[in-house]
């Protein structure tokens, strides 16, 4: 379906709120991506001691009271920060809008592990007597928690929910927002993804048991997608939320427009719990291109999913060679080499880091690519330093997740 015909169906990004391990707004984040600043550090986690993680340092009290922080979750706090920043950036005054026409759609890889682990730890101090289990556990662990906390904090009365889609969730949150705007269900969407993943030891322990947890004596060098010495994922927290609206509404109020979402796609591998399948990934990219009415060669920047697992990178590179092989004008980067894997936030956050390219023409590089794995060979990986393209018209973002959920978004320069 080509939605460019009807202006009411054209959806644009007019605000970005984010917290990344290397920046608490788009300006800081972009600066870090252009100057090679990593956000990965040593981090203490329960039972495992020191691990490597991407840790955010946004000011949670900027938009929340101490009591909200005590009662809510880290994911809720990340979401509230990002949503306020996204509306602030879009110059939307909460007091002046109809808050029943705002939808909150947040992707999550997982939710509730942190809070459940905390309660098990809590009752372990009382001989596992469950009368010490907190009454806050239920509201903290319902799957809609992060989006629900946003509506309480911002007094938004439109719909709110989370979209569970493993590591494709950030893109899926945005896609949901686009769809709901096109259906006329809402007039403004706060759409993106959040992650509190590093607050649970389980995610580190599980990736370690899979042989897929990154290790390196220098934390900033641990996340190394496409590199021969890569040894797994760096788990990170983060969040990114867009203000999405119809182009007609955005133009009417003279909003700053970051770009138009001209294509998206989601599909499933139907193949394995954790292993990715390049055939379906390639198919997903082609579906998005078709929806946008584009050819592969029209894309200027391709932000790869690139988690730095042994097999994941190889499989994605096969899919990328299938779709983009021989296209000399498509430049490829990744973001996880800087900040690790921000899980539910990854899709939206990684796309955001590239959107300023519409203004400055620069492709930010991938970090830590010292020796390209021949199995990850791609023609145009931007490595080490930014590349000036002059003009950027189309950016594509890939995010794939467990159970073979694939998601692709294409944003066009406005």
């Amino acid at each position, binding site marked *: 379906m080509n939605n460019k015909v009807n202006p009411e169906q054209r959806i644009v990004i007019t605000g970005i709120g984010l917290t990344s391990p290397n920046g608490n707004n788009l300006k800081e984040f972009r600066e870090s991506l252009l100057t090679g600043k990593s956000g990965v550090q040593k981090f203490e986690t329960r039972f495992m001691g020191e691990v490597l993680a991407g840790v955010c340092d946004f000011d949670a009290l900027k938009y929340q*009271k*101490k*009591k909200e922080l*005590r*009662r809510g979750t880290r994911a809720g706090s990340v979401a509230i920060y990002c949503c306020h920043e996204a509306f602030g950036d879009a110059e939307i005054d909460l007091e002046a809008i109809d808050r029943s026409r705002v939808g909150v759609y947040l992707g999550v890889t997982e939710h509730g592990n942190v809070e459940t682990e905390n309660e098990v730890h809590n009752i372990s101090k*009382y001989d596992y007597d469950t*009368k*010490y289990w*907190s*009454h*806050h556990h239920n509201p903290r662990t319902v799957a809609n928690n992060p989006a629900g906390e946003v509506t309480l904090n911002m007094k938004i009365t439109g719909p709110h929910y989370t979209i569970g889609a493993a590591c494709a969730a950030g893109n899926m949150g945005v896609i949901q927002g686009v769809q709901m705007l096109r259906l006329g269900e809402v007039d403004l969407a706060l759409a993106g993804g959040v992650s509190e993943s590093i607050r649970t030891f389980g995610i580190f322990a599980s990736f370690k048991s899979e042989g897929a947890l990154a290790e390196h004596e220098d934390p900033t060098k641990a996340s190394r997608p496409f590199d021969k010495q890569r040894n797994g994922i760096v788990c990170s927290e983060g969040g990114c939320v867009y203000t999405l609206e119809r182009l007609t509404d955005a133009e009417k109020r003279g909003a700053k427009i970051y770009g138009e979402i001209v294509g998206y796609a989601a599909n499933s591998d139907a193949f394995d719990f954790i292993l990715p399948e390049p055939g379906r990934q390639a198919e997903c990219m082609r579906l998005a291109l078709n929806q946008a009415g584009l050819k592969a060669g029209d894309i200027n920047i391709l932000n790869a999913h690139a988690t730095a697992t042994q097999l994941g990178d190889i499989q994605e590179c096969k899919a990328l060679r299938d779709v983009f092989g021989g296209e000399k004008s498509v430049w490829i980067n990744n973001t996880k080499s800087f900040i690790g894997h921000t899980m539910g936030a990854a899709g939206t956050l990684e796309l955001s880091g590239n959107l300023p390219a519409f203004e400055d023409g620069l492709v930010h590089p991938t970090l830590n690519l010292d020796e390209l794995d021949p199995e990850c060979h791609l023609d145009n990986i931007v490595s080490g330093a930014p590349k000036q393209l002059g003009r950027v018209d189309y950016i594509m973002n890939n995010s794939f997740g467990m159970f073979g959920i694939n998601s692709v978004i294409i944003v066009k320069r406005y």
Partner: protein
Amino acid sequence: MTRDEVRQAVVSILADIAPDEDVSSIKDDVTLREQMDLDSMDFLDIVMELRKRFNVEVPESDYQQLVSMASCVQYLQPLLKDRQLAS
């Protein structure tokens, strides 16, 4: 625990549950809800903290006894008279 110490124990719990509030100026004879932003989940927190800190069980039928500082102290003092205020 003396009455003063019981009061101190309740104030300390409230300080944790309602960290944005000034607990130094709580009026004993006014209901807690009238002077602080507290809801039913917060009262469950008070019950939980009494359980954790002093091994005291407040049955649901007695929750109304926690309505003001004065009624808290009145109700809790007999239950806490043999307990020590944690340092």
